[in-house]
């Protein structure tokens, strides 16, 4: 059976005529895709809605896959703006993802010999994720488990036809959906299911130090401290045994910071906040944008009775690395600290709120400041 290992292509790639390269840039893939992508990276979701609307009304989209890609950005923008019903309605307008309307082979004049589904996989993901936001948790779980079956069938099919690149991509999607499921079960505190799913991945040779670390966090959560220490020890071993040509997704800095953060958590749960702070500071030294280290260090300072410094740590990070530090959780923590530190905290919270309004992307949930 195939493990989750990168499979190198042995056969030479088909030659490309540079003049007719269909895959040179994003705009080759879809109409003005580069601009859409740029807006998405900046979090300008309202602008995306405008751009999609304009492209549709001016009939700028000529091919069916263009329409689908634009629809994907549109649905994604609606979810980012928390317009979940609108997003769901737009997805429903497609009726059936598996319809022949969305297959390349239906349009041989446009796609020549290409066959298969032109539906961007994101749509299937968003379709499964939306029910959770609309209060239908059971429906969402069902969707994800059905999606998992769908993916596994695809992996089988592609394998039979020796389509190795496709197999790789679909395996990546299988891992993705498993992670989504772990997250949802975790949110509902169904820890035994989470542990089973994580162990399933690990036992099938999916050895990701971040995943093993998260296993450790869950073990800490349920009071299995010995188990957690075992998991963290395993991560350290993975770091020490790492080869220079390791194609792991983690950089050296990320890996080392992960190990430090794991150590910090053990100290934190054991109430040794001083040692936890020390570990987090090592992380921040290596990478000032390690927002988990920054946030958690600030919390440790609070537990050390140093409210003033905990506030400073968070405020500094917002100033120095705003695009990374600005997240709703950090803002919630900072506001809790303000409420404790100031009798008249509305003023300082309003200052924060105004700053956020100027800097934050469209999808930032400003209700976190409780102003």
């Amino acid at each position, binding site marked *: 059976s195939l493990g989750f290992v990168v499979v190198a292509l042995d056969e030479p790639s088909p030659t490309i005529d540079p003049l007719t390269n269909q895959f040179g840039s*994003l705009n080759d893939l879809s109409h003005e895709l580069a601009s859409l992508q740029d807006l998405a990276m900046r979090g300008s979701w309202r602008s995306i809605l405008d751009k999609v609307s304009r492209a549709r009304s001016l009939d700028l989209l000529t091919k069916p896959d263009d329409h689908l890609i634009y629809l994907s*950005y549109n649905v*994604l923008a609606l979810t980012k703006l928390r317009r979940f019903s609108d997003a769901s309605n737009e997805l429903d307008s497609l009726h059936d993802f598996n319809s022949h309307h969305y297959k390349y082979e239906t349009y041989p004049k446009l796609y020549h010999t290409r066959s298969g589904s032109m539906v961007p*996989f994101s749509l299937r993901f968003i379709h499964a994720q939306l029910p959770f936001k609309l209060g239908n948790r059971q429906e969402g779980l069902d969707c994800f488990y059905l999606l998992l079956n769908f993916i596994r069938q695809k992996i089988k099919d592609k394998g039979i036809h020796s389509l190795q690149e*496709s197999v790789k991509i679909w395996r990546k999607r299988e891992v993705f959906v498993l992670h989504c499921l772990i997250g949802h079960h*975790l949110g509902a505190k169904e820890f035994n299911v989470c542990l089973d799913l994580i162990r399933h991945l690990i036992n099938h040779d999916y050895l990701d130090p971040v995943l093993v670390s998260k296993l450790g*966090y869950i073990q*800490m959560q349920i009071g299995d401290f010995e188990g957690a220490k075992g998991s963290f020890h395993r991560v350290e071993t993975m770091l020490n045994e790492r080869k220079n040509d390791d194609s792991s997704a983690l950089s050296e800095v990320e890996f080392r910071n992960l190990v430090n953060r794991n150590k910090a958590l053990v100290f934190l749960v054991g109430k040794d906040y001083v040692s936890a702070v020390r570990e987090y500071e090592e992380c921040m030294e290596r990478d000032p944008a390690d927002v988990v280290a920054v946030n958690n260090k600030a919390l440790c300072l609070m537990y050390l009775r140093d409210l003033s410094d905990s506030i400073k740590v968070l405020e500094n990070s917002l100033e120095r690395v705003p695009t990374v530090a600005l997240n709703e959780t950090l803002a919630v923590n900072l506001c809790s600290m303000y409420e*404790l530190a100031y009798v008249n905290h509305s003023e300082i919270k309003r200052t924060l709120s105004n700053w956020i309004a100027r800097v934050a992307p469209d999808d930032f949930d400003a209700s976190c400041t409780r102003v």
Partner: protein
Amino acid sequence: MSTTPQGIHSLAFRVMRLCKPSFHVEPPFRLDPSDLFVGEDIFDDPLAASNLSSLLSSHVNKSTDSSDMTFANRFLLHHPSDAMGFSGLLVLPQSFGAIYLGETFCSYISINNSSNFEVKDVIIKAEIQTERERILLLDTSKSPVGTIHAGGHYDFIVEHDVKELGAYTMVCTALYNDGDGERKYLPQFFKFVVANPLSVRTKVRTVKETTYLEACIENHTKSNLYVDQVEFEPAPYWTAKILKADELYPADNLSTGEIVKPPIIVRSGGGIHNYLYQMKISSPGSEQVKAKRSSILGKLQISWRTNLGEPGRLQTQQILGTPSSCKEIELQVLGIPSLIILDKPFSVHLNLTNHTDRELGPFEVWLSKNSAHEKFVMFNGLQTMALPAVEAFGSTDFHLNLVATKLGVQRISGLIVFDTIEKKTFEPLADVEIFVESD
């Protein structure tokens, strides 16, 4: 929760419950570019397969560079496990929450000077008041706070093990000289209620010499409890052994040989977990009877954890066994013939045991006639049987000669054993079913 103090004060107390922080979990809408830019099956096309990867990898969110001023992290997956929405970010407790018996109450207290002038000679006290007692948590009179400048604050953290149910008031007081040199007194009151996190229901059953104690722990809190340890402390002269079912699924061994022990999670709002203990009298002779008669079996000590290892610990009151678990006389059926024919006499082999520390009997044995239903099994011959006395802790075997007068399933019921000396009646035998066949 805080009552507004009288008068205008330069100082004010701010309070925050400081239980352990929580992990933030929220599965996000974050994507991989290959799931957005192109159709899902495009990699079936060999041309696309070989050329897209370089294009896509240049757009994967590899950047953790803080100078990269994009919000890519909110949109693209940087690492596969980002899809879980569980980064390790911790959140401070967002509400006071519920406090339960057996936990440790921990609070951050900050006293703020919101005036425009310095306050001097500040003395701070914090005290917990319950119906039964007052506990001093903090008193700075020996190590004075001194001065708090305008806009400044002084912080402290207090902890208290909660051992009493009901209404609590945390009283924070500050004595200080304000800007005008006036000595002022600021009391602030923070009220909360302590509830019971668990209830323990017990059942006691006795089978011959062994007593079984079944304990059911029910979680009444709003969060899950992770059971650390449940220990039964038996009363004197008793021993207890916990009985566990065989594991349905044997311990999972990971590829590194790690043994996995599934955690005991008692779910919030009514989840339960059961424990079974086998108890025996540890010392023989008369102590044994005393132990049985006293009927105190022992206590359960329960320790648990909630969010991120927050500990809690409780002990039950004495658990009682049922007094009637001690029988003076016991009758056991040792043998019944496999074939019982209608109207033909048959013999039943019985054993009578004396569980007391004195001689009992001689006895008379008969089948009572006072039952509601008609009897179809009766003594064959003399309607009363005599048995000799039985010494302390001894037993005697005997045979009853019976006859059945009706076919099918019948019962031997209402067997009476009468102590002729103490003039005491025992009904020590439950109904015994027999099957009566025709010739």
